[in-house]
């Protein structure tokens, strides 16, 4: 069960494990493209620190940077998120099947216990 998807999900979730990066991603989800200085404005950290966070987000493919003249704008890139959503949906399907079997097992035990007590 080793595959590239799980590796990239690991990196994605790890990248999103930081509150500043989550906040950057959330703002980009709301406002689409923002310049680096607009992105940096609400944070108390310095611009180079923000750039470092952007590097990490860009490494996992969550954001794209584009240069327009002297301004660098940042926008979200949907593919890794789609991978994550796919993973969640697969995971939920697996659990639905498990819960079907678990419920059958537990309900049989419950009926047996009630019959014994009657």
């Amino acid at each position: 069960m080793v595959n590239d998807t799980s590796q990239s999900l690991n990196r994605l979730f790890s990248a999103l494990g930081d509150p500043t990066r989550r906040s950057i991603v959330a703002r980009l989800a709301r406002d689409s493209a923002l310049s680096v200085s607009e992105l940096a404005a609400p944070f108390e950290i310095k611009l180079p620190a923000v750039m470092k966070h952007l590097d990490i987000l860009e490494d996992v493919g969550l954001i794209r940077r584009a240069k327009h003249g002297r301004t660098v704008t940042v926008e979200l890139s949907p593919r890794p998120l789609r991978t994550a959503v796919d993973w969640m949906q697969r995971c939920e399907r697996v659990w639905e099947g498990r819960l079907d079997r678990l419920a059958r097992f537990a309900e049989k035990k419950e009926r047996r216990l009630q019959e014994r007590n009657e």
Partner: protein
Amino acid sequence: MSEATCVRRIEARPSIVFDALTTAEGMACWWCPDDGPVISAASDPKVGGRFRVRFRKLDGSEHECSGEFLEIEEPRRVVMSFQWTSGGVPEERDRVSRVELHLRLIDTGTELTVIHGGLYDDASADNHGSGWGAALDRLARWLAASSRLHPV
């Protein structure tokens, strides 16, 4: 975004559901991801205790999953971590999943909630459970909107 959640109502009392979730006999019935057979199951349901389930999927491939009970509050709550292993050796370095099981007594039996945490490594384990919350909800909405704009 980071976790998958399932809720199920089961017509059995919480103590029975709890045993079904944590004992080897119970796990042998449900752990396999499809209807394939479980080959072996062992479980030591106490905090720090371990479990191991070996099964064959319907496609014929054999897999083994082993993990540890991190928290046990009988019969209300179980938290466990697990990894896919082959002969006791992890198949994937640094990849550990975490599952929380919450059992709630209801009129008809038990309401079971499963929260399967995202894959994480040691570095991000501390952040796990700190809530990806609102930011990620917004992301999911953004994703839904963007897939309308850029259909795959």
